[in-house]
């Protein structure tokens, strides 16, 4: 009914020539849902959320507010949008089709001596029109970290953050993180040993410091030869200054401890990625205030570095006071199906993680750790909000409304269009004319 009244108001506005102001729907009211604010207000059994100009203005029961658009959320769950912790969104289209991938700098027959390491910045390759973006948006993902892979060096390069509205200006943070591989993958990239990978990292950090202290002399060429190119040394400055996150791939408990020591020595903002055996060193992670990005469904002893993988890893880490971020499924599916971070969080709850902690692990914690907006519903917060059909951590629930910056998003994707075209497949050529 509210919608209808608003439509009438909108029509009047059109007549009065106020179309542009009204059509923007600068105020929007989400009424009567169970609201997980993931902020100080906690969980509100039945509350309204007032959104103005892309931000949350007020949250509370029975808000007495006029709004240009009203969303009835009674009987529904309202949460901040999911924020994917580790994806290649906008950098990949089809995993096995080389021409559609921009996730890593690759040295090959045609690209001898590609020297890009820490300075690899995939931002110019970012495509906000990727088909992966509407699909994940419809799954409730509103923001995502985009962090390159590496195929040749322990340094993958620098990551950025996007919002999933598909706009050309949808990058919401640049140079937020440097990905580094230690552990087994690091050993492979570095030349066969974990210790070599570790030494390469240490050397790079030392050179980055040396560069910071002697920048002019080094740029003049009036200095000893350094291993890293200037571009890489420059790219490492935000990392050694503590402005950028150092995301280090490590699964084995001993690798994690070694990495914590290094991060403390160089005063870096370390985040451990993987952490299959994180539970074994949860106390040390908590004491060093090092967050972890984990796949909460990883319980396979798939490598000797993750023999201790277990389903209650998230619960044990959280209990010890570690800030936990839950990513999507492993491998490339973390990008294609970034929205499945919800299923991971649900499994974390099934294995002992408190419910709200799991919600934060796919939303607020990601925003906090990488320093971007989103992840809470509180006055002043960016209005990335999802209205769910039911418990968002249940695999049988789905996003009914997705707001990014307060703007309701389309939930149509290639996937829904293919479904609708072939709902009752039959012979003949008519399907091709169905849109």
């Amino acid at each position, binding site marked *: 009914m509210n919608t209808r009244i608003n439509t009438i108001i909108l029509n009047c506005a059109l007549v009065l020539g106020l179309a542009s102001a009204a059509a923007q729907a600068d105020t929007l009211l989400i009424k009567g849902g169970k609201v997980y604010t993931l902020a100080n207000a906690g969980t509100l059994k039945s509350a309204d959320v007032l959104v103005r100009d892309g931000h949350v203005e007020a949250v509370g029961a029975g808000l007495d507010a006029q709004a240009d658009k009203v969303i009835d959320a009674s009987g529904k769950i309202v949460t901040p949008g999911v924020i994917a912790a580790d994806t290649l969104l906008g950098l*990949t*289209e*089809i*995993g*096995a*089709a080389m021409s559609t991938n921009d996730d890593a700098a690759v040295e090959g027959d045609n690209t001898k001596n590609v020297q890009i390491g820490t300075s690899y910045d995939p931002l110019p390759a970012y495509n906000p029109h990727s088909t*992966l973006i509407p699909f994940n948006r419809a799954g409730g993902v509103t923001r995502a970290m985009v962090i390159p892979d590496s195929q040749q060096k322990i340094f993958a390069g620098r990551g950025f953050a996007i919002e999933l509205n598909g706009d050309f200006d949808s990058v919401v943070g640049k140079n937020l993180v440097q990905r580094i591989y230690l552990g087994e993958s690091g050993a492979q990239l570095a030349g066969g040993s974990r210790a070599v990978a570790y030494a390469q990292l240490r050397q790079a950090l030392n050179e980055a410091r040396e560069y910071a202290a002697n920048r002019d002399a080094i740029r003049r060429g009036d200095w000893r030869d350094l291993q890293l190119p200037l571009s890489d040394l420059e790219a490492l400055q935000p990392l050694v200054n503590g402005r950028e996150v150092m995301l280090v791939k490590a699964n084995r408990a001993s690798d994690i401890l070694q990495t914590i020591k290094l991060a403390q020595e160089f005063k870096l903002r370390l985040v451990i990625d993987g952490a299959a055996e994180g539970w074994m060193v949860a106390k040390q992670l908590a004491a060093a205030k090092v967050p972890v990005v984990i796949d909460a*469904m*990883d*319980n*396979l*002893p*798939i*490598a*000797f570095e993750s*023999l*201790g993988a*277990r389903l209650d890893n998230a619960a044990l880490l959280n209990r010890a006071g570690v800030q936990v971020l839950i990513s999507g*499924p*492993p491998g*490339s*599916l973390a*990008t*294609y*199906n970034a929205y*499945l971070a919800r*299923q991971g969080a*649900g*499994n974390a*709850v*099934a294995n002992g993680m408190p419910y709200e902690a799991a919600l934060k692990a796919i939303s607020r914690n990601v925003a906090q750790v990488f320093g971007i907006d989103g992840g809470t519903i509180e006055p002043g917060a960016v209005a990335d909000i999802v209205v769910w059909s039911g418990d968002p*951590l*249940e*695999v*049988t*629930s*789905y996003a009914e409304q997705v707001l990014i910056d307060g703007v309701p998003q389309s939930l149509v994707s*290639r*996937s*829904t269009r*293919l*479904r609708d075209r*072939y*709902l*009752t*497949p*039959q*012979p003949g050529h008519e399907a091709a004319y169905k849109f």
Partner: protein
Amino acid sequence: MFLHARCFAAALCTAVLLAGCGGDERGDKGKALDFADQDAFPSTYTIPESKPVLIRGATLLTGTDEQLDNTDLLLADGKIARIGKGLKAPKDALVIDGHDKWVTPGIIDVHSHLGDYPAPAIESSQDGNEMTSPNTAEVWAEHSVWTQDPQFALALAGGVTTLQILPGSANLFGGRSVTLKNVPGRSVQDMKFPGAPYGLKMACGENPKRVYGSKGMAPSTRMGNVAGYRKAWIAAAAYKKKWEDYAKNGGEKPERDLQLETLAGVLDGLILVHNHCYRGEEMAVMMDIANEFGFHIAAFHHAVEAYKVADLLAKNHVCAAMWADWWGFKHEAFDMTPANIAIVDHAKACAMIHSDDAVGIQHLNQETAKAMTAGQRAGFDIQPKDAVKWMTLNPAKALGIDDQTGSLEKGKMADVVLWSGNPFSVYSKAEKVYIDGELMYDRDNKKRQPHSDFDLGILDAKGERP
């Protein structure tokens, strides 16, 4: 599909019986041919005697489109003995309170590589893909199975009671599959599902043409793939005829050929074709090839585009094994809709979930739940009672064992999972898993949770892997 599967099972039993009579030293004249070579590595799986089990007052999803609330289930002598209300417990029965709990048939994964791609996945353990020739129909997946793969026990804790181990998909003909009961065993024969038909793994599309094309040999295109299949079936038909002539007329005994034995076994209806195939039009081509050479495709696997040809699948009685939502990793997996399974089911084709994955196999209930929800959102009336067969009875059909397992029906194997709640909730867990009536996994009793040799002393000399 029902009919087909039963025919195969019947043919198979005959073959086993004849082989059992054995000892025919006078030559093969007049003897039924066993191209599938059923008795070379026979199942040594045995069903131990176990006490009857009565589960009282649970919600039963039977796998035959029924949900029975507050109903009792009696397991006795390894079989499902009775289903009903207020059943009396036999004297020595273990009685389990099933109130607030749910029961389903044991989950069956029609597509697994456990044992062939075990954990840990180190170089020396990659035994699932004989990538040395486009046709390796002579290899048998069971001969790669590492029975101590710790992933079997994890799948069991997820309610999986039966699984098909397939060789990998690099080849047009990858080799034979084997169907296993998910029980610990020292030899793979200790795990073999007694009498289950063998499968032949075939692969369409990108994998074979990429693997061999990159070596500068055939196939390097999809048309090269098809030429390779047809060439092989021609050879198989000739081989089959040679042996049939020999059986009928005697004469010089033909030489055995392991590769052609497997293919002839397919033409004879003894071995079921499991065809890795993503795209709709390729599935149509494969069904034409099957018609050309007179065999039947039991199931397409990874059938991401099955929804586009669901009516053709129904018409040809071909099952489709699908993921709930995997996509994008290659071009032939680009056209994904999570409603895939529901659309195939709605078209009255045999639709099922599958994992191809050691994590996915542990959560096939959740995968099925996602597919069910996608079907509901597409507008189909699909409830848990309907969706459960996507992970139980339909995979049993594809494996040719649906007359023995896959549903809660009197006389079937007591392969049963007791769930802590609705199995389609992310929070529910398999509490007890029975295989042939024996309690193989008990979440509440650490002593009834199997650990492989690999798990022992691996983190702590005195302990098991958690």
